């Protein structure tokens, strides 16, 4: 079996059997998304934002990372034959694991739920919140996902550097 670990800011889509996508989550969210008819699916791993102490982060600024992460995943599944209307999601993470960052995990989970609702994508299973980190293993072709709680602390990665540019 092939295993593809992903970290924050990454996503992967697979359409063949025997391929597992894995990730380790703290307050981040991983969405496992799959079209069961064409057996194409994938997983992303995103953090809306981790405000540095004293800084104020605009909520809209935070959301665009999540929206972007979801769009990349959805578009890739659609490129491989998936249909948005058939997609089902599983939702993991959103733990409030870091002292002083209370609420980030909760905000991440709330965003993911709201996003999927807006897009009309059904949530099959959700394992979110709590204080412990999670390991997620997803077999997109087979449609199997496993989520286990892990005891050791997850390194907290920083929010992605904001990049926007491009001139003609």
């Amino acid at each position: 079996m092939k295993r593809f670990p992903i970290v924050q800011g990454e996503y992967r889509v697979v359409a063949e059997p025997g391929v597992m996508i894995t990730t380790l989550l703290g307050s981040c969210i991983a969405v496992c998304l799959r079209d069961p008819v064409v057996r194409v699916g994938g997983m992303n791993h995103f953090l809306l934002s981790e405000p540095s102490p004293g800084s104020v982060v605009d909520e809209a600024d935070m959301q665009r990372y999540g929206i972007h992460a979801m769009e990349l995943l959805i578009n890739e599944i659609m490129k491989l034959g998936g249909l948005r209307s058939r997609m089902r999601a599983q939702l993991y993470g959103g733990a409030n694991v870091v002292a002083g960052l209370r609420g980030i995990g909760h905000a991440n989970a709330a965003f993911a739920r709201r996003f999927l609702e807006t897009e009309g994508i059904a949530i099959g299973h959700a394992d979110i919140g709590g204080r412990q980190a999670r390991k997620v293993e997803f077999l997109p072709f087979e449609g199997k996902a496993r989520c286990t709680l892990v005891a050791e602390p997850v390194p907290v990665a920083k929010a992605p550097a904001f990049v926007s540019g491009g001139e003609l």
Partner: protein
Amino acid sequence: MPAAAAIKVMVVDDQASMRAMIRRALQDLGFKDVRDKAGPVEALDAVKSDRVHLIISDYNMPDMDGLQFLEAVRKDPVIGKTVFIMLTGSADKEIVQKAAALGVNNYVVKPFAPAALKEKIERVFGELT
């Protein structure tokens, strides 16, 4: 200096969350007349019957992509000169070049902040008031 409130905008994206986010950003910038559609086909019908000054369109959409949409707009004798700003993913250099050849006015790389969108619009329309 055009007033943002006087510019009619059509936002085209297959993702409802993205449409809502762009709509909010435009409203924060002072735009009053913002319409949106989930796909180029519906958007083309809408802007032909009720013209807009600015089209902001995603590239990656299932039925017709942003380049095909841009081409269809530019070929139309009535709406052909409508300002067209494309939203692209960061890795889409080739798409940007094709869009430039087809006459796109500007493009914005996702994920973008409202300020980036404002800057791209102002490069076409001049400073917004």
